């Protein structure tokens, strides 16, 4: 048996197994009338190489919140569209691994918070081959506090050029918001934090008592 046939056989086995696992997770959690349509959406997404976990989560969420069947299906379909758009943006921005599931999920979430699609390209340019999701969320944080999108992206681009990566972008946004809360104007808040770069303070580490009191979440069904 050639290796290509082995791959095809494995793929033909893995996808149905993943689909069966999704059906098992959704059974009893969403209106029965949605199962066939949701299954179809999930299989299409899997064939396109989109991450399916966000879609399963959206369906479970709708079921938990007591949402009508039609609205659950619509929301899961909309989520699939968002993931599709996010991956296309990453690919057109020249991202070397546009299909990375966590990056596609993070970018889709940031776009759903209102971040402009063209920002993906600006941030990918200064973060080649690295996750842009956190930086996009940091921009969304600032826009949510009334900062202009362009100025917010400029700050993140500067932060990236000075070596900040990953969740540190969120620290940059948090520092700006903190300056705003202290009474500074928005332009002054941005300037103050720009002057601090790259030495923006990280969030305080959890106190030892917090760690000692932490409990693990009760077991949930295993994810694919």
């Amino acid at each position, binding site marked *: 048996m050639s290796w290509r046939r082995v791959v095809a056989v494995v793929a033909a086995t893995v996808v149905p197994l993943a689909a069966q696992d999704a059906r098992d997770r959704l059974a009893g959690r969403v209106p029965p009338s949605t199962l066939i349509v949701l299954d179809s959406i999930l299989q299409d997404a899997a064939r396109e190489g989109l991450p399916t976990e966000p879609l399963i989560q959206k369906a479970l969420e709708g079921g938990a919140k007591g949402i009508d069947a039609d609205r659950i299906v619509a929301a899961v379909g909309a989520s699939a569209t968002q993931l599709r758009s996010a991956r296309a943006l990453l690919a057109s921005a020249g991202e070397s691994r546009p299909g990375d599931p966590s990056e596609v999920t993070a970018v889709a979430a940031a776009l759903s918070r209102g971040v402009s699609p063209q920002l993906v390209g600006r941030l990918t340019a200064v973060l080649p081959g690295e996750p842009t999701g956190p930086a996009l969320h940091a921009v969304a944080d600032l826009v949510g506090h009334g900062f202009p999108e362009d100025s917010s992206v400029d700050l993140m681009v500067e932060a990236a050029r000075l070596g900040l990566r990953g969740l540190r972008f969120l620290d940059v946004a948090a520092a700006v918001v903190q300056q705003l809360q202290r*009474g*500074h104007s928005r332009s*002054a808040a941005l300037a*103050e934090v720009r*002057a601090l770069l790259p*030495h923006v303070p990280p969030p305080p580490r959890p106190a030892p008592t917090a760690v000692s009191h932490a409990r693990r979440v009760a077991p949930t069904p295993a994810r694919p």
Partner: protein
Amino acid sequence: MNSQRVLPTGDREVSDSEVVARVLAGDAEAFGLIIRRYEGGLLRYATRMLGYPDAAADAVAEGLVRAYRHLASCRDPARLKSWLYRIVGNRCRSHLSRRSASDLSLEDAPPLPDPSDTEAEAERAEQMALVERALHTLSPEKREAFLLKHVEGLSYEEMAEATGERIPTLKMRVHRARAALLELLEEYP
């Protein structure tokens, strides 16, 4: 423009960069040099911005403590002056945002000339009162721009570093501040 300041200390002048290096190397007492070098101008600036000497002292003290704690983030010690004005300027803005900037406490207003003062001193006191009143009719942005340019002697480049604003914006504010001040001062011969 590099306007690094030096202060004679004994037989040798110590530059801002040297003082910063000493503080960062662990010589906390050396920060006293920075305070002595800049607190006068910073207090003057903050007092003119806020109108209350006590509030100005708070803003400058808070700003200098912050500068000490974040001294490592001063990217160019040769531009320490504009960096300090930025920090204190932010403290002033924070104070201003908590109250109406046009208020000027009568207790803090320059004293009325005493009849026993010399004529020159009396005239100077009247001029001070007039100019300070005129200054406080300006918006905080114009007031700041005029003070940094004409009282604290910063260049436009240094002002840009201190405020985070672009030079054309600062020039416009300074020009408008001059015009507004002149109009007010011309009302009183």
